[in-house]
């Protein structure tokens, strides 16, 4: 019995088990937590982080780093709103936003892979450049959405669940599949695990990295659109600091910054832990300053638990 328990706790999916236990505890202890409305609100609050985490996982798994995601999300949101306002067609706006995201991501990828410039510096640079473009394009002010249909993206529901949550779920499924079952996913892990070996094995390392960043851009574009629709405007100051939330969700979910290790289930858990922490703190009415401390402690505890688990398992 204890052996079986141990096995479950220490197995591959141990983080998931920890999460389930934590979730049960929070549900019991925090009033109003386990209600339909709150669950939907919670899920909606992690949409942006969750969507971007899908590709950030690839980025980190390949030993790269992307700080520009927040700026791209904001910029893509601006583009979506401005393009649909100008052309009168929401579809064109969406396409423009995703395309802009893809272009920025592609530029990141090319600079990093081809010119061999450190990913941290490159994306720190594009983070500023893109933020600058978002500010310039709107003169620093938010741009309102003309067509109310645009709001419907975020407000509409399918089977009682808002569209953004569906989008998130679909992206989780897609990228989980891509990571585990496609050549692209395995190559990504291989590049992160041992770049030299991958190169010698004939993996087109440069191309894979460029693709990763381009995908990251596309996904940020999607996140930007949903965000703009949710907040009914394009805001040049949106999503500041998003990169840190996303990266910590990934790391919390067991993605190694040293590359080569990532699972989609881990990342989902990481994203949810962060979301639940925020949600529960607000439900419990914890004062703003103490929220900082609680947030830090939860981060530490989550990683510590996971570490204890894996070291009990004899891994390092």
């Amino acid at each position: 019995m204890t052996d079986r328990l141990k096995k479950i706790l220490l197995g591959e999916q141990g983080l998931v088990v920890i999460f389930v236990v934590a979730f049960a505890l929070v549900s019991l202890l925090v009033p109003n937590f386990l209600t339909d409305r709150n669950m939907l609100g919670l899920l909606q609050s992690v949409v942006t982080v969750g969507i971007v985490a899908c590709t950030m996982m690839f980025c980190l798994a390949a030993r790269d780093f992307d700080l520009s995601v927040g700026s791209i999300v904001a910029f893509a949101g601006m583009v979506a709103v401005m393009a649909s306002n100008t052309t009168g067609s929401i579809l064109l706006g969406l396409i423009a936003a995703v395309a802009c995201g893809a272009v920025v991501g592609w530029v990141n990828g090319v600079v990093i892979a081809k010119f061999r410039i450190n990913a941290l510096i490159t994306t720190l640079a594009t983070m500023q450049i893109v933020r600058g473009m978002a500010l310039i394009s709107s003169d620093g002010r938010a741009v309102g959405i003309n067509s109310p249909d645009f709001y419907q993206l975020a407000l509409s529901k399918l089977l009682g669940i808002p569209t953004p949550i569906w989008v998130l779920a679909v992206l989780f499924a897609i990228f989980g599949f891509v990571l585990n079952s496609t050549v692209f996913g395995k190559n990504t892990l291989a590049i992160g695990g041992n770049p030299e070996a991958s190169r010698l094995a004939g993996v087109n390392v440069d191309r894979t990295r460029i693709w990763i960043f381009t995908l990251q851009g596309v996904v940020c574009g999607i996140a930007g659109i949903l965000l703009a629709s949710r907040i009914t405007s394009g805001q040049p100051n949106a999503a500041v600091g998003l990169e840190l939330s996303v990266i910590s969700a990934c790391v919390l979910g067991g993605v190694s910054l040293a590359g080569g290790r990532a699972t989609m289930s881990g990342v989902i858990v990481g994203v949810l832990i962060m979301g639940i922490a925020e949600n529960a703190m607000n439900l419990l009415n914890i004062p703003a300053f103490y929220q900082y401390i609680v947030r830090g402690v939860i981060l530490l505890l989550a990683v510590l638990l996971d570490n204890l688990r894996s070291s009990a398992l004899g891994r390092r």
Partner: protein
Amino acid sequence: ASAYAQDTKIGFVVKQPEEPWFQDEWKFADQAAKEKGFTLVKIGAEDGEKLMSAIDNLGAQGAQGFVVCTPDVKLGPGIVAKAAANNLKLMTVDDRLVGADGKPLEDVPHMGISATKIGEAVGQAIVDEMKARGWKMDEVGAIRVSYDQLPTAVDRVEGAISVLKASGFKAGNIFDAPQAKTDTEAALNAATVVLNAHADIKKWIAFGLNDEAVLGAVRASESVGIPADGMIGVGIGGAESAINEFKKPAATGFVGTVIISPKRHGYETALNMYDWIANNKEPAKLTLTAGALAKRDDYQKVRKDLGIE
């Protein structure tokens, strides 16, 4: 307080929970909650996304209404829709919501003071002080500590500039000192550059987004050796960092600050919301408050008049 009050839950959502200003608003709202016996839920929401989550969160907790100072006024339609979806009464404080067309959403009750007005008060205070000191406007330089990323900041400094220009200040003597962040150090660094680039100008005035920005400019003037009587800085806010200046043994170039009353904004809005929920008494659509200039010699009195302290 009735039995009904116990079930009343009101949200108070602000855009910058770390700022003393919002801390004060919360404090006074709490006071109202204590008096009337309702529950106040305080949530910080730094951007649009967090705000939307916060509203959902309030809905989930069973709140009946909330007061909000939005991170961006253009969020208007989104906030209104979200509040309706969660069946929450909505009132705004400080910043007034606008629609996609840029016009204020007049249906939403609001209490506040326009950014431009505050700026104008700053400009007027500076002009008065220059006159009192007998400065010739031509030989004075102006530091515009700017943070253009924030629309409110632009409105405030532009308000000040409009008064200066109207009083005959030379537009060419106004120099931009862009802060990279909104803290004092960034303002200090930016202002230092301006002062050094125009070493020939001996008399300076400074204005900006808040007290911290202006303080940065004043510190910069001290570090390049401009005496206190060669500097006129007027801030906005009137919180501790400004009061500290007045408490210093010797007067500094930080001449005054335009204080807005967090008491009215916090206490009254919470109370109005409670009345709306409990007694179905809808608040006025628009309540405008005024800022008051506080200086070294009268800041205690001004604060008392505004109900702070």
